[in-house]
């Protein structure tokens, strides 16, 4: 949302692109993506046999490629895709392929503001990271989980340090997995490493580690917590002092630990995807307080309402006062806000979007074949053939809706009162 300050939020509805007209121009049009400012819509298109390019609104990129996929707008409005020419892959940004090419490139990530783009890459059968067309000098036998710092300057990836022969189980259990940060290996090796994560300023990296068949812990910059657990999940950093918090399993139960010490007293059947409120004062997580029942716990206090099927990652309102999460019971998805559900439920639902004051919650949803936009549990636009997340203006007064209706791409800015009525 970095751009939303510069985005035009004057109310009004505009049909920007006639998608029907484009259908006859191309043999194949893949999935459309809409830009964060709402002014553009783009898709990979096939121009002739074996040639692909990007169509933005009704203009195609000058270059075409043998293959092209993973078209995405970054929050900064950069349009990137993974492209292949002459059996070499690279990243193309706003129509321009990077100079470096690879045997393969995948898993694009970008900085928080969307200005810096990075991806995993493979060259000469070795694996590494490329950031803004600059590949790491060091490459590895294999890579897996990938994290980029918020400013996009640093990358961390789980790497295999040594080759293993076929079914070399003893070798594996000696530990051949570690972390590479900016291409530099930690000096420790583990049986497994997973889910690296940077702290806010990018100075530290934490990850899950496995030190024996059934011994798990957390390591921060290669310094392991002394405690070992039956299992752990993804760690996160606590904003200011840089401590690390992770779900740990002891016996059959889960709780949260900070630097190895339990900080929640609740014993949960399951606990994961914990996150801090923007002001850092509250900590919310997905928990299962009893078998087969799920909810959100905020500061160790689970919501009273439980959900049978699934609960997804909680989102705090920008003022840190409210929490919302996609929840599913009896096959229906909904958004729960502070433990309350008001919508009728839909087949699919996307992450909640709060207004800055937390007063209203919007979300994109899908029912049967039609997309819709939901505001405070009420559908406000329905039967859309495509739709993207609503974007709220920084002053919280307006909402930009981006959708496709009757084969026209529509950008609509609506006052929030109109939606929340």
């Amino acid at each position, binding site marked *: 949302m970095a751009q939303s300050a510069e985005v035009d939020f004057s109310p009004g509805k505009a049909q920007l692109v006639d998608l029907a007209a484009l259908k006859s121009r191309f043999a194949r049009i893949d999935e459309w993506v809409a830009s964060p400012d709402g002014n553009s819509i783009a898709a990979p298109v096939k121009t002739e046999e074996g040639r692909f390019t990007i169509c933005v609104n009704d203009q195609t990129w000058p270059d075409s490629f043998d293959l092209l996929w993973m078209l995405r707008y970054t929050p900064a409005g950069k349009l990137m895709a993974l492209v292949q020419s002459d059996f070499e892959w690279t990243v193309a940004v706003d129509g321009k392929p990077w100079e470096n090419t690879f045997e393969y490139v995948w898993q694009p990530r970008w900085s928080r503001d969307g200005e810096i783009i990075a991806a995993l890459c493979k060259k000469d059968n070795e694996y590494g990271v490329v950031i803004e067309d600059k590949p790491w000098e060091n490459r590895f036998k294999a890579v897996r989980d990938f994290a980029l710092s918020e400013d996009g300057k640093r990358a961390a990836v789980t790497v295999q340090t040594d080759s293993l022969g076929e079914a070399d189980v003893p070798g594996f259990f000696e530990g051949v997995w570690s972390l590479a940060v900016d291409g530099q290996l930690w000096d420790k090796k583990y049986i497994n490493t997973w889910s690296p994560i940077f702290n806010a300023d990018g100075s530290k990296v934490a990850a899950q580690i496995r030190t024996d068949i059934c011994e798990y812990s957390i390591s921060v910059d290669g310094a392991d917590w002394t405690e070992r657990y039956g299992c752990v999940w993804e760690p996160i950093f606590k904003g200011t002092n840089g401590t690390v918090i992770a779900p740990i399993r002891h016996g*059959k139960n889960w709780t949260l630990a900070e630097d190895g010490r339990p900080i929640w007293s609740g014993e949960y*059947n399951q606990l994961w995807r914990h996150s801090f409120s923007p002001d850092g004062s509250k900590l919310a997580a997905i928990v299962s307080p009893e*078998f*087969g029942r799920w909810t959100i716990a905020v500061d160790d206090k689970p919501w009273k309402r439980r959900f049978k099927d699934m609960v997804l990652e909680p989102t705090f309102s920008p003022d840190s006062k409210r929490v919302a999460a996609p929840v599913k019971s009896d096959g229906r998805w909904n958004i729960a806000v502070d433990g309350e559900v008001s919508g009728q439920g839909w087949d699919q639902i996307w992450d909640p979007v709060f207004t800055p004051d937390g007063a209203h919650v919007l979300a994109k949803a899908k029912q049967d074949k039609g997309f819709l936009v939901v505001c405070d549990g009420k559908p406000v636009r329905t039967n859309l053939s495509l739709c993207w997340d609503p974007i709220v203006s920084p002053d919280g007064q307006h909402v930009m809706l981006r959708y496709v209706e009757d084969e026209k791409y529509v950008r609509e800015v609506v006052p929030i009162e109109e939606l929340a009525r």
Partner: protein
Amino acid sequence: MYEFSRGPLVWIAFIVLIGGTIYRVAKIYRDSKKERVVHPYMSLSHGMRSIAHWLVPFGARNMRMRPVFTVMSFLFHICLLLTPIFLLGHVMLFEQSWGISWWTLPDGLANVMTILVVVAVTVFALRRLAHPVVRFVTKTSDWVLLVIVAAPFVTGLLAYYQVFDYRTVMILHMWSGALWLMVIPFTRIVHMIFFPLTRAYMGSEFGHVRSARDW
């Protein structure tokens, strides 16, 4: 001795049986709650469906595959349970003590049923020796249990036919009967109590969770 056997001993036996049964069921219930993944999957209808299929002779494929054993096993269990409950001599004791009585088996039939139990136990014992798998998994306790189960019936027969000293045989009969009742909750005869539970769980896992048959 005789008076103790027909009075307090019976009380003790029933108290141990009932108390033991309550203890075992309560414990398995509590433990199964702790196990978390048992109760949420239980279904009354699928549990009953499974129990029914395994309580009806030839209701399961495995029973149809071995008809002789199936008949023997059903006769054994029916005679084992019904004979003591509906035996005239037993009902008369209840009538003398508490003034309650119920329908009784004709003497001749009760006699045949008792003999059937003894025959079945003998067949089971021979099967334990003859069938290689059963022999391989037989423990000493299996033999002891067979003796405990057979003893009240053998001594009952001896008493009925007045073989040996009647009074001694009756004491043995009462003691072996009491022993049999008391060991039910604490030996593998507990299968009598657990059968509906394990069966219902399996029936639920197969029928309710997996839409499949378990017979």
